[in-house]
């Protein structure tokens, strides 16, 4: 199989893959915060102190307080869970949807392909953030709504990718051999074609996760995020905007948190691609 590289370079890439190391460590850190963040938070993220509004960073409030006197550091920690889980669950769901649609269209071809590809192409004409906004405004402001919106915006491009990979693999000799020995099409698709497309899918999904964080935060920024007083980063960013000139620290914390998480997902994705893709040997 073309996708499996020779042993030596693979070990080399595994040990010297800076992206993968950096990405997975940063990602691991965020996942740790997502799980334990609420316990580490020094304050209740919804506790207000109306006599300590818009305060800058200090020893009592490491990242300052927001417009109704809540501790920003605690809110960032408590918010990690929302963003990470929304990103991960949406790429997982998009993975299932995109693979199902793309592989069926690619493998079976003909009318099935024309109908499915038509739908996919139609959805691809709508920019994914616009599609996500439309879906989020119907699905409502909740973590579930955000996840559905992001998932739906990822399915079309992923389905397109999987379809072309499956069409490519379908022409391989091992598929023809399987057909010859009388194996069923579903069995060929599930046991022989898809496992060979898995690498591409995993890389695409890991890169999508960074995108998911951005779209989720953008939706939160636009007011389509979770319900208040939940501390979602994009919503925090949106609420800070009014105070940009008087209390810039409000926008820094969620802004930096979002950037770092996107960086984590993207470098992890890049690392994975380097790890799996033999064509990128330097």
């Amino acid at each position, binding site marked *: 199989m073309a996708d499996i590289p020779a042993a030596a370079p693979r070990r080399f890439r595994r040990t010297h893959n800076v992206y993968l190391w950096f990405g997975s460590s940063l990602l691991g850190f965020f996942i740790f915060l997502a799980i334990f963040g609420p316990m580490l938070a020094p304050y209740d993220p*919804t*506790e*207000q102190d*109306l*006599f300590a*509004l*818009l305060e800058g960073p200090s020893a009592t409030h490491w990242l300052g307080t927001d*417009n*109704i*006197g809540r501790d920003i550091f605690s809110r960032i920690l408590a918010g990690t869970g929302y963003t990470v889980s929304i990103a991960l669950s949406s790429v997982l769901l998009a993975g299932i949807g995109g693979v199902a649609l793309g592989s069926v269209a690619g493998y079976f071809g003909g009318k099935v392909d024309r109908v499915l590809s038509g739908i996919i192409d139609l959805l691809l004409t709508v920019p994914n953030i616009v599609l996500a906004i439309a879906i989020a*405004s119907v699905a409502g*402001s909740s973590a579930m709504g955000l996840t559905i919106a992001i998932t739906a915006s990822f399915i079309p491009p992923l389905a397109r990718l999987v379809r072309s990979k499956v069409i490519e693999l379908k022409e391989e000799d091992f598929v023809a051999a399987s057909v010859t020995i009388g194996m069923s099409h579903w069995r060929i698709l599930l046991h022989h074609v898809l496992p060979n497309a898995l690498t591409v899918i995993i890389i695409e999904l890991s890169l999508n996760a960074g995108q998911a964080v951005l779209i989720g935060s953008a939706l939160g920024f636009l*007011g*389509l995020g979770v*319900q*208040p*007083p939940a501390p979602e980063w994009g919503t925090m960013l949106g*609420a800070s905007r*009014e*105070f*940009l*000139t*008087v*209390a810039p620290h409000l926008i820094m914390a969620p802004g930096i948190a979002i950037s770092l998480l996107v960086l984590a997902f993207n470098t992890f994705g890049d690392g994975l691609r380097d790890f799996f893709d033999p064509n990128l040997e330097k």
Partner: protein
Amino acid sequence: MQRRQFLTAAAGAAALAALPATTLRAFAQSGSGTITYGQSTSILTLDPAHGAFTGYPGGYEAALLLFDRLLDFDADMKIVPQLAQSYEMSEDLQTCTISLRSGVTFHDGTPLDAAAVKFNIERMMNKDINTTNRPLWDPISGVETPDDTTVVITTSAPFAQLPNTLAHGSGAIVSPAAIEKFGEDGFAQNPVGAGPYELEAFSPGQELTLKAFAGYWGGKPGADRIVFKFIAEPATRISALTTGAVDIIDSVPVQLVSQLAGNADIEVINRPGLRPIGLIINLTRPTLSEVKVRQALNLAVPVVTIAEKVFFGYAQAPDSPLAFDAIGHKSVGELVYDQEKAKALLAEAGYAPGADGIVEKDGARLSLALYVPEGLFPGDVAVAEIVSGALKQIGVEAVITKIEKGAYWDYLRQDKASMVWDLAMFGFNPSNASGTYHLASLFKSNADDNGKPDVWNAGRYNNPRVDELLNLADTAPAEADRLAALGEAQDIIWADAPHVWLQVNENVSAARKSVSGVAVMPIVFTTLRDAKI
């Protein structure tokens, strides 16, 4: 080749067609004596009928310059004559005799006489043509014109608020000839009135240019031109003002006022509004029909702190269901923040703290659905979060649902079976400044509580005595009796606490000091009628 030539020619023609309008406009603005106003809301239509001036308040602000009305509000919301020279209400409050200023003409040169006024009032009475502001116009039953300068308006029942209706923005007198010329559909984009400024150019949703009307009865207006520009973002408005791109801006967010206050070229103009913000309490819920629970909710919210801290002092805690400048406002009480008393009231109502700190009665937790729009009222979501946090302190859970502002009104105005909220943020701006109109819109019992609310009594408040008093406040022959009735109604409503009273925000605008005479009226509007440059 031919096809390409055709395309090039077509593109060129389109570019040429687009050019003159923008060039002309740029020219128009470069002249001296132009005041540019950066508005937070866009102007879409300029007809008092057919949905009235939109968007709100941008459309009304332009209408105040384009159109004169029979009567006007002065800066303190007192009613003063404008196109009327004088007016007199009959003893039975059913007839108003108006003597018109003579020699007034519309921008199109046609005379503004009794016939034109009759045409206008009958147009506003027509339910098919004028669909909004109905409570202002429904009581009117007829208009007579004994001579060219006298108009007699009759109402079907005593209607003390008739002068308020005539002074309201929708009392704008439009040119009947222009309605004839542009049609009922076309007038909103081609408004012709008798105000100090006339239309020069209008791109709905973007920009409106008015020029001084040479034939204005009141003499030459203060500027040659007034340009209304729509600038949605507060930060953009502020930088447009500080750089001098615009001379006036409205709706300055209170947290940014401090930036402007330090600028020697800029004056901040602020005035408490007529719109008290509060949470409508859903009285159809058995838990909330208990007055002690409602009073407890009111005691639990630190309203004064919200006004001072969250709104930087550009808001006040109300002392009545009416805002301070509403006509007929009476100070009826003080909002006290007292958690212990609130808890005691809940205990008296039979509630005891449950395992999770939320109070319970007969095993049911006191958990309320709090609906709030985003961006409709000042600091709406932040205030809801504070209320929710404050209620938790007395053991009441308030779960916030944030609704996109465009969809919010539909959530509020539901039939009884579809009411999803227990508390819903709301603020009513009585655009005719009448306290009676305000209270009647919010607290007069609905004809059918199961259907949609008649006006804004969305919480289904029902107190026969209040109905009686509000009726009296509209119909008693002597003004003192009307005010007394309105005062007593405020007392009762305050004690019944059908809302959680929150704050009265100030309207904050700002102008460059090169422009004088800009005023912020309690009814939201920033008015440029007396503005000079």
